[in-house]
């Protein structure tokens, strides 16, 4: 079993760091400290952090912070970042108004 799959493993206590207040997810304003605390709450994957804190769920859908979150998890769990999957990408590629997405009209040229 890869250690990361055992959610009861001892990752040590949460120790606050001087830069815990910096913002990692700018869209949803989630700090480094909040993300580190979530890892200590048991959120060991990028998807779990996203669902627990909304980091990466805002307008840019994690395009900016995804990698940072992954690195924070890797450091806290003491694994290499490549062992972690990125968050699932979802359509649409960029925000689209309902009236555009729902438009049935086809403009024939």
């Amino acid at each position, binding site marked *: *079993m*890869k250690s*990361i*799959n*055992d*959610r*009861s493993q001892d990752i040590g206590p949460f120790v606050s760091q001087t830069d815990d207040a910096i913002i990692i997810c700018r869209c949803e304003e989630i700090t480094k400290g909040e993300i580190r605390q979530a890892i200590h*709450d*048991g*959120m*060991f*994957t990028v*998807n*779990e952090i996203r*669902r*627990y804190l*909304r980091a990466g*769920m*805002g*307008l840019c*859908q994690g395009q900016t912070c995804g990698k940072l979150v992954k690195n924070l998890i890797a450091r806290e769990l003491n694994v290499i970042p490549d062992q972690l*999957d990125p968050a699932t990408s*979802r*359509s*649409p590629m960029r*925000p*689209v*108004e*309902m*009236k555009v*997405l*729902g*438009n*049935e009209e086809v403009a024939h040229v």
Partner: protein
Amino acid sequence: MSKHMSKYNDVIIIGGGIIGNATAYYLAKKGLSVTVLEASKDIGIGGSSRNGGGVRQSGRDTRELPLAMWGIKNLWPGLSEELGVDVEYTQKGNLRLGKTAVHQKILQGLTDKAVSCGLDVRMINGDEIRAINPYLSEEVTCASWCPTDGHANPLTATLGYYKKARELGVRFITEAPCFELRKIKGVIRQVVTPDAIYEADKVLVAAGFDSRKILATVGIDVPMMPLKMECLVTEAEPPMFLQMLGTADADFYGHQSKHGSFVFGGSSGFEHLNKDNGSPISSSIGASCTCRGIIKYFPALADAKIVRAWAGWLDDCADHVPVISPVEEVPGLYIACAFSGHGFGIAPAVGYNVAEMIADGHSTIDLSALRYDRFKPKQ
């Protein structure tokens, strides 16, 4: 392949969705040792993180309604405090909307049934509807109104139960797909995964529609099929309304979350024919179709931007009602699956009552109408 034999537990739960996590939490609170095995890398990757967040009683089958009503009365109001995570429970009522005489008839039928079970739900007209939710279009002429229904955040509720259960000592193991159950001397004993065999006195199968394959290894069948459903979410909007919404036509359902985004679910009518059957991937037509449905009811949302769409599976039962039951043929084995698209709202009540069933042999709510052996061929 030599398998590592894992240490013994009181209970093994197969499936780390909200049902497995909630049951694990209530069992741990009773002092039992519990291991949860989750097939995927993420806790809560199934329907539990993909649903519309409805916590509703109205519209539910009379066999399921007692659980829904009990959970809303006894567990949901204190859940954020109990788990130490904001589950965003909002109890501001449910409007099930209609536009035609046919809709009115459907809604009246559902309302009459719920009233006979003691639920406060009633039919209201267009003016009464717009007094509750002024954003609804004039096309909406009737609705059933259940003031005690509501919604919550499925992501934080599912992971909140996980976090709290983990704190109480429940062991969670990811990437541990169970592919076989084994009896020893006529009772359940072993849960087999690719890496290890786990042993326990009692086993709960709570693996969504995959429960069917797992249960088949001890000769038990639950008649259910996977059914794909799609959802979408908008960017954060200013607060507009707090009710949960649905329609008689089932063209969409949803709510505005505490964050400000609108979470809506809907269907295109082609779900059962989807070419991607096998993985829950949103189709090219699903979100567009749902948007058209929403705009007809809420013209004001036409400019709201969709930031994300996704799909998930329902574990749709033959009679669209869950199976929550001990299994007589396999002493020590329990089932909680086939939620048919409404397992989130009742999840706390299910977890609580299944924990009682496993630990004490009986539960607060009588679950006998939800037994696994209720399915009979036609006469």
